[in-house]
């Protein structure tokens, strides 16, 4: 008997907890940090009520949280953790372990700005700081996408072509604490989509021990394998998202979503929750007859090089909206813009590439700000010359 999915109004953290529950996670090890706490306390309640059959290790810090999660994964259990900001920085040593050991754990990063130049509110530096570690990173726009992405994350990471950890990232408060209607898929259908976890490389059972032959090969070779797994993950992410769409009716366009980009001359690139606001701005400007589109960079690792190149061939100007800082980086750019520049570099004809810093340390990203950005990109596309290459939007006098 097939049951219908249920829709419930809930905060992003609760949606994440549902994603974990539906994925039938078996071991959770987590340490509380604002704004992730509602997620882990919801999971604790689900376990207490008997809705989720998992062992929850209430650890004494994030360094342990991820280590215990990774070890549980090696021991054959589907494992989960979550953290943010200071917690992510504190667990840095642990963060390198799952990719190198090819352990497909899932960790939600509930984005929060890192102290001292941050507070409780979100920007993307905590997760982007991990871009070189071998974690797949998927940025979610709202609670529904968080729930769906966690289920997808296990399918992607546990695929033997990949065997890498996955971090669904979503902004604290803006997504984590905002209540929106979220459709909860039927458990049986999720079970069909996500089979039980089984790792072909590992077994810690004494009767049949198995471990990756890591020490038999050179480190360069092992690293190259992680890199190749990242490349293969692109295809897996597309496949998994497409199948998810067919089964559950929600498809996120895999690596990047292009919104009203068909005949666009200028595009704005966003990540995470800013995308929702940017959609409205693009709609407004489209009504005014402006040829602007929106690119939602859903997956930052592996970076969607081919998709960005394909867009780069069609438009005159790209503006990357960065919710992060990389002090002293090339041309004073943000992390997203730097990566985009390399993607565009091999093209015979480049579009203009502009960079906009917004929402740093969790300040609100407003419609006037995004309108200002969109209009600057449009103007650059029209005149072939940017007003400014790199703008700290909050410090600018806005257009109009």
């Amino acid at each position, binding site marked *: 008997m097939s049951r219908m999915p249920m829709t419930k109004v809930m905060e992003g953290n609760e949606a994440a907890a549902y994603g974990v529950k539906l994925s039938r996670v*078996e*071991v959770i*090890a987590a340490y509380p940090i604002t704004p992730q706490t509602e997620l882990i306390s919801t999971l604790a309640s689900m376990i207490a009520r008997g809705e989720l*059959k*998992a*062992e929850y*290790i*209430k*650890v*004494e*810090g994030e*360094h*342990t949280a991820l*280590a*215990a*999660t*990774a*070890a*549980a*994964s*090696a*021991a*054959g*259990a589907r*494992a989960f953790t979550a953290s943010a900001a200071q917690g992510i920085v504190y667990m840095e*040593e*642990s963060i390198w*372990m799952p990719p190198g050991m090819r352990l497909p754990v899932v960790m939600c990063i509930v984005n929060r700005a890192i102290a001292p130049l941050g507070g409780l509110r979100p920007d993307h530096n905590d997760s982007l700081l991990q871009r070189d570690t071998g974690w797949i990173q998927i940025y979610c726009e709202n609670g529904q996408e968080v729930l769906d992405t966690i289920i997808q994350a296990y399918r992607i990471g546990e695929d033997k072509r990949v065997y890498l950890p996955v971090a669904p990232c979503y902004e604290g408060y803006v997504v984590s604490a905002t209540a929106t209607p979220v459709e909860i898929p039927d458990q049986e259908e999720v079970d069909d989509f996500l089979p039980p976890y089984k790792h072909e490389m590992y*077994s*810690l*059972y*004494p009767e049949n*021990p*198995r*471990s990756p032959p890591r020490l038999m090969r050179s480190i360069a070779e092992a690293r190259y394998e992680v890199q190749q797994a990242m490349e293969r993950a692109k295809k897996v992410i597309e496949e998994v998202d497409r199948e998810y769409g067919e089964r559950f009716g929600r498809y996120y366009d895999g690596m990047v979503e292009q919104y009203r980009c068909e005949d666009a001359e200028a595009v704005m690139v966003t990540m995470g929750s800013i995308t929702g606001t940017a959609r409205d701005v693009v709609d407004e400007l489209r009504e005014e007859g402006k040829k602007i589109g929106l690119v939602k960079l859903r997956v930052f690792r592996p970076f969607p090089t081919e998709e960005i190149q394909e867009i780069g061939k069609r438009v005159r100007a790209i503006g990357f909206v960065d919710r992060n800082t990389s002090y002293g980086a090339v041309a004073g750019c943000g992390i997203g813009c730097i990566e985009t520049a390399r993607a565009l570099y091999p093209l015979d004809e480049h579009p203009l590439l502009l960079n906009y810093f917004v929402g740093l340390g969790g300040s609100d990203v407003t419609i006037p700000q995004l309108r200002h950005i969109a209009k600057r990109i449009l103007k650059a596309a029209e005149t072939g010359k940017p007003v400014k290459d790199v703008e700290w939007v909050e410090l600018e006098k806005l257009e109009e």
Partner: protein
Amino acid sequence: MSLVEKFEEHYKEKLVRPGNGCCPGCGGSLAWRMLLEALGKNTVLYGGAPCAGCAMRVIKLPRFGFHFSFVGDGASGIAAAFKVKGREDITVFSSAGDGGVGDISFGKVSACAERNDNFIQCCIDNEAYMNTGIQKSGLTPYGAWTTTTPTGKKSKKKMIPMILAQHRIPYLATLSIAYPQDLMKKVRKAKEIRGFRYLHLVMPCPTGWRFPASKTVEVARLAVQTWIWPLYEVEKGILRLTMKPKQRPVEDYLRLQGRFRHLTEDEIAEIQRSVDEEKERLLERDGKNIWL
């Protein structure tokens, strides 16, 4: 049967393969033989790179570990996974050195004890960071030379077993490779208990302690006979001294080791006084509940 065949026959039954990368005279290979003998085949090992563990890459059991700063945490994860999978019959044995247990991962070990996670944590204590080349740890004894305490350590050894006893864990014991029967009996006992169990083994290190490689067992025995490393267990709070040897002067132990070469008569007398006091305190509490 040729000698080679005899060795092959021997090692077929053992959980260690022949050969290892330990320094000559390292107590580690002895320790692992005894530990594994008592633990048996249905065991998984967890641990990063404590000196003895690192050198013993020849163990025929499933192993998992990260790095030396990850003491106990992975064992918690493995124990949780085994519980979910209904495989609590498997013994999870986590090993680490003194720097791991006593310094960088002390908080982790304390937390595992507080949660009463279901595994055995063993500290293989050679009283300094030996893998990096003899640097002082919190478990280096008073007076000992290391490369970072060139004039001798000025503070005392951290008493980890007694600190963990106050976590009210079900079982803990101190071990010595010079007393294999005592060691294996305690490990077998620990294996039968559920929850967090702690074993602390002081393991002489010829390289770092500066004594001839042939004297490892002698040094280990003297540590016990001088009451510098008393052997006891604490079960459900009850302290029990498992060896009460006739006391020998600390000088016998200290003078065998180059790391104490610089100690003056006064300093040795001070160490003797402190050992005597601790011995008295232990004897007073023998057979009693030491949970405060």
